[in-house]
């Protein structure tokens, strides 16, 4: 070893800032100083690391100079500054503390994660934008299939339509029929409605004729009935702009199920109200034939209203059934002897034929609506699965705000978490299957409300992610528990009507009321109807001037047949499965509707 500087003297330290100053690059010849600077700059090290490297390189060159080497030669011997900087950086990085390495790995992982996420989102967005829904069926055709098969001469709807068009009632008179005549009218009220009914004879006759036809035959679509619109506009005092006629829908069009217009409900409701008013008039005038015809017509309309199949159709149908039962129970309370035995028996058979809660409700229409939603928003892989599409996003946006059907690009990202088509289909139809099965379970045998069909679906939406994932279902799912309550309550009311008929027939035969409902079985009733509250026989008490037939109501407390005196309590008592208590002890009185034990 020649010209080697001495290495065996001086104090040691583990940093260049020891008690003796390290050689600074500034003390080197310019070309070497420049080289050190370049290496340091390219190394991108921490300040303390740079000063360490600077000191070491400066010492290195100082040693070289001290041994007699020329600066230019030292620079050549050193090698490429760029690759030196790179290697020095690599070596120094390995010397960094553990926390830095951990942080660095975390940073790299984060960057990798972000890149992977962006890649994933990008691919998903491309798939989202290029995906196209495929329309496999036309929901209008499916919904109208049954109605179209009915011959024109067997369709009730054309007669109902005619009945509405020939109805000569102003708004106030229509409101009178809708709001004031829910119970037997007083003499004064009767005087008020009599001329109104006289003017409506033709409409009433057409309605009864329509009710005698085998099916409704209403053809649903996306356009309104211009003639009916004009009639409503005229009756309403021609307020606002006159309705505009729209071109009728062609069979080539395939428009969505959700915007199908069911324009027949409002006219049919009006006609049922008219029949109800005429039934009360018939009671007042002791016209048993007209009363029977009207109640029969309302029951027939209840059956007709089940088509086209949709939950709303079934709810309207149930409402008509309830009206028929109320009118008949009011007739039995006010004029027990009005209807003949055969008329009562005939009506009893008609009420009984309305079936159970499961017969009253069908969820088939909702299934069609939902499947149509899926075919318009998801791709179809031919095996029932698919992914959400940009067109689907536009469809959803248009549903939310028809005036601005532009789907925001955020759908491309949020659709990542949306359930796929099969999942959505299975969850929705599964919930409907459970709800349909539940309709066969009587209210007193129902599990706790938290275990019911609707509740189990709501439970699955507890997390924010699930809410987004199944957003479409939460928007489109009908209120299943409400449908159950409406249907089972209608069955209870229908059973109360049948019991009231049976009691009246018993009274005529034995010239006295039965002391208990047991006396009616089996001659007048196959079995005593059971109370929705607890599954025990409906409650029956004799009182001055008659009897009271009642359910304990949702509170399951026997108040002795006293009816609730406010609307809130009346509503609460009908909501079986809930725990709210009425403000005063009360029951759900089914007969008589205006009864002698009322507070």
């Amino acid at each position: 070893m020649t010209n080697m500087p001495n290495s065996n003297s001086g104090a040691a330290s583990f940093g260049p800032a020891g008690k003796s100053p390290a050689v600074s690059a500034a003390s080197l010849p310019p070309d070497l100083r420049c080289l050190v600077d370049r290496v340091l700059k390219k190394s991108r090290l921490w300040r303390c690391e740079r000063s360490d490297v600077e000191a070491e390189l400066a010492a290195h060159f100082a040693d070289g100079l001290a041994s007699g080497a020329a600066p230019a030669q030292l620079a050549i011997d050193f090698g490429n500054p760029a690759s030196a900087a790179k290697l020095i950086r690599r070596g120094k990085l390995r010397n960094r503390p553990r926390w830095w390495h951990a942080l660095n790995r975390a940073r790299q992982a984060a960057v990798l994660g972000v890149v992977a996420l962006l890649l994933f989102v990008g691919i998903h967005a491309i798939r989202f934008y290029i995906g196209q829904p495929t329309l496999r069926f036309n929901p209008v055709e499916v919904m109208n299939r049954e109605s179209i098969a009915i011959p024109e001469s067997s369709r009730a709807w054309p007669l109902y339509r005619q009945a509405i068009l020939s109805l000569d009632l102003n708004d106030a008179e229509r409101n009178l029929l809708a709001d004031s005549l829910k119970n037997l009218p007083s003499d004064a009220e009767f005087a008020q409605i009599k001329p109104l009914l006289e003017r409506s004879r033709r409409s009433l006759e057409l309605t009864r004729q329509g009710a005698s036809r085998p099916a409704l035959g209403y053809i649903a679509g996306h356009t309104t009935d211009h003639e009916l619109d004009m009639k409503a506009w005229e009756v309403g005092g021609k307020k606002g702009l006159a309705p505009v006629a729209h071109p009728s829908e062609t069979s080539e069009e395939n428009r969505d199920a959700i915007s199908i217009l069911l324009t027949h409900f409002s006219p049919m409701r009006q006609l049922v109200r008219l029949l109800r008013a005429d039934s009360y008039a018939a009671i007042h005038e002791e016209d048993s034939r007209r009363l029977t015809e009207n109640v029969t017509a309302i029951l027939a309309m209840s059956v007709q209203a089940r088509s086209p199949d949709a939950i709303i159709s079934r709810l309207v149908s149930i409402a008509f059934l309830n009206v028929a039962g109320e009118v008949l129970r009011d007739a039995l309370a006010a004029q027990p002897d009005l209807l003949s035995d055969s008329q009562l028996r005939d009506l009893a058979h008609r009420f009984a034929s309305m079936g159970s809660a499961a017969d009253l409700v069908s969820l088939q229409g909702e299934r069609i609506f939902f499947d149509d939603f899926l075919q318009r928003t998801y791709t179809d892989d031919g095996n029932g699965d698919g992914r959400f599409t940009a067109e689907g996003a536009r469809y959803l946006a248009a549903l939310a705000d028809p005036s601005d059907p532009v789907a925001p690009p955020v759908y491309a990202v949020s659709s990542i978490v949306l359930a796929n088509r099969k999942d959505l289909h299975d969850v929705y139809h599964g919930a409907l299957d459970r709800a349909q099965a539940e309709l066969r379970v009587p209210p007193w045998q129902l599990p706790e409300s938290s275990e019911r069909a609707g509740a189990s679906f709501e439970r699955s939406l507890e997390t924010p992610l699930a809410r987004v994932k199944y957003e479409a279902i939460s928007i489109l799912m009908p209120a299943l528990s409400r449908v159950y309550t409406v249907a089972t309550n209608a069955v209870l009311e229908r059973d109360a009507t049948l019991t009231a008929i049976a009691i009246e027939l018993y009274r005529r035969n034995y010239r006295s009321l039965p002391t208990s409902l047991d006396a009616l079985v089996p001659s007048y009733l196959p079995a005593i109807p059971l109370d929705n509250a607890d599954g025990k026989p409906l409650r029956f008490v004799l009182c001055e001037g008659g009897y009271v037939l009642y359910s304990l109501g949702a509170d399951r407390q026997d108040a002795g047949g006293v009816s609730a005196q406010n609307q809130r309590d009346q509503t609460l008592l009908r909501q079986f499965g809930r725990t709210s208590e009425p403000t005063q002890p009360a029951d759900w009185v089914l007969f008589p509707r205006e009864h002698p034990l009322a507070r």
Partner: protein
Amino acid sequence: MKIERELMRGAGPVAVLKLLNRREMYGYELVETLAERTDGALAMGQSTLYPMLYNLEAQGFIEGYWKEAGTKGAGGNGGSRDRKYYRLTDKGKKRLAEDSRQWEAVTKAMQAIGVISSVAFAFGA
């Protein structure tokens, strides 16, 4: 003779460890010694040596420390200055022993198949 880069990558660290096994040395001294003792075969640019030293340091085989050298400065302006010296750690000694065994095995193997005719590398002789 210049050694191929890949071969140098394996031989360089062992050579440095072997030199430091004898005594502590600083960078310039290592470069010069390697060039002189191997007839330039293992001569490496400083741009290779210093990163190698940092790597060996990071692996715990050597440790560097600053020490006053007591020589004249770069400009010959007199006075003491610091140098960074490196010395072998216990871990480095174990590694050197392991590497030496492996190099002996490789050398024997090379001899056996006639790649080399005699032991060509002998440090610390």
